[in-house]
């Protein structure tokens, strides 16, 4: 058990944290505004990964171009998902449990849809991982640095949106109280649709970088990662985007450091254990509560 192995784990952890930050922020923003957990969210990652696969392998586009385009297409998928599947229930003020069951059903439906189209076998992108660079005593491939950079840029963009734009402030207001937001004149239905677009975009990006990071993937890619996302989201306090960023960092590093010492197939178990402990002892998340941000 050496310090250098811990350090190595931190390096991998930063990459996993980047993948996780994208998806956790996407899920938690949508929860904050709409107040229910989307159990089909993992499929946004899967759909993003397979759309990028089509663009990268079918149309021979560069992987990062494919990723960005897949993010936009997944945003549209999420937007349609809300309008076609979710809105009919929210319009009737269906109880939360109904929405949970609906999203769980949609998770299975979408996963099987992807499998029907692409088959169950492993897929891989054509993406040279590039040369290896030393950064602060850590080794990263150029590709891994891209992943970290993309996640960091996305987090800055989300922060700017939430803190400085009218749309972002409306999202935060709805996250505090959608009734008061409506009373204040905010067109809450439209803002909700924007949130689904954003949630799908971040989920799609996350799915592509996850697929790059794990090298080869199946239609179960997203749903297998969903509980890791839940761990990060709950650690940060559900509905709180800045909390989700912090949760992603902690969970990502914890998973990869543990993988240095145990069999790496246990790292999801580590995330799951943290999730259960959080739910038991601090379900509101690690940040001091001050309303949601």
């Amino acid at each position, binding site marked *: 058990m050496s310090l250098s192995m811990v350090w190595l784990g931190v390096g991998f952890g930063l990459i996993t944290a980047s993948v996780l930050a994208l998806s956790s922020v996407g899920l938690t923003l949508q929860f904050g505004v709409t107040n229910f957990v989307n159990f089909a969210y993992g499929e946004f990652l899967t759909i993003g990964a397979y759309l990028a696969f089509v663009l990268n392998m079918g149309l021979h586009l560069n992987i990062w171009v494919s990723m960005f385009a897949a993010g936009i297409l997944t945003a549209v998928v999420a937007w349609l998902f809300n309008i076609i599947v979710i809105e009919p229930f929210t319009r009737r003020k269906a109880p939360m449990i109904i929405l949970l069951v609906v999203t769980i059903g949609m998770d299975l439906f979408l996963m099987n849809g992807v499998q029907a189209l692409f088959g169950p076998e492993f897929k891989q992108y054509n993406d040279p991982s590039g040369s290896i660079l030393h950064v602060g005593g850590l080794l990263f491939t150029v590709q891994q640095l891209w992943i970290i950079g993309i996640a960091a840029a996305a987090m800055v963009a989300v922060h700017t949106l939430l803190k400085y734009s009218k749309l972002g402030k409306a999202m*935060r*207001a709805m996250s505090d109280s959608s009734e008061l937001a409506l009373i*204040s004149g905010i067109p809450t239905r439209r803002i909700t649709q924007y949130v689904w677009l954003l949630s799908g975009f971040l989920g799609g990006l996350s799915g592509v970088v996850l697929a790059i990071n794990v090298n080869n993937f199946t239609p179960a890619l997203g749903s297998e990662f969903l509980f890791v996302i839940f761990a990060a989201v709950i650690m940060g306090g559900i509905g709180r985007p800045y909390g989700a960023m912090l949760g992603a960092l902690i969970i990502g590093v914890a998973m990869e450091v543990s993988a240095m010492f145990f069999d790496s197939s246990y790292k999801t178990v580590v995330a799951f254990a943290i999730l259960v402990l959080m739910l038991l002892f601090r379900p509101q998340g690690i940040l001091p509560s001050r*309303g*949601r941000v």
Partner: protein
Amino acid sequence: MERALVVENFTAGYGKNAIIRNVHLTAREGTSTVIIGPNGAGKSTLLKAIFGLITVFSGTVTIDGQDVTRVTADRLVARGLAYVPQNGNVFPSLSIRENLEIGGYRQQHYPKDRMDQVFAIFPDLLKAARRSAGTLSGGQRQMLAMGRALMSDPSVLLLDEPTAGLSPSYTKIVWHHILAIAQTGKAVVVVEQNANTALSLADRAYLLVAGENREEGPAGELLEREDIGEMFLGR
């Protein structure tokens, strides 16, 4: 004085259940109108129904002569109506300034001078502009809630029990603001538990009992009435 808000034959409730029946209410520009009545009389329900938040079965609501019955809440703001609910009337995680910005959401741009006007009315808010609303005291919160509603420059302002839970001194301050806001030409409609104070300060009053109009008139006259005093003002 123009009639800013006119409610006629208004029947509304939750689901299929009518709570208020055939209610009428008129509020004029530049005046304060108070709605009193026992707990559960339907005062809050009336405000929610006017603001399009619950089912309206029949009747009409007009603002400045325009029919706005069944217009959705978010659009009513653009039609000159603003509403401060009794509970949960600020966004706790947003700063005071952001709460006010949200109040001006329907304007094309954040109305900077509008915010300056609101800060001029409530100077305490300006001092704490960057603090999150969740940290405010009950009285400050009420000021912010009113300020948020004023950001859309409404012609009619509905307030649900703005002095509930406040100390007598804060109650006086809130009423001072209500009267001042009315003086700027707005019609202010206030639901009040604290009927004695309200009747001694407001211009007009309605007494609502069991979802129906019972009495109405100049507030001072209702205050003088022996029977109303005995039954509803605890005298």
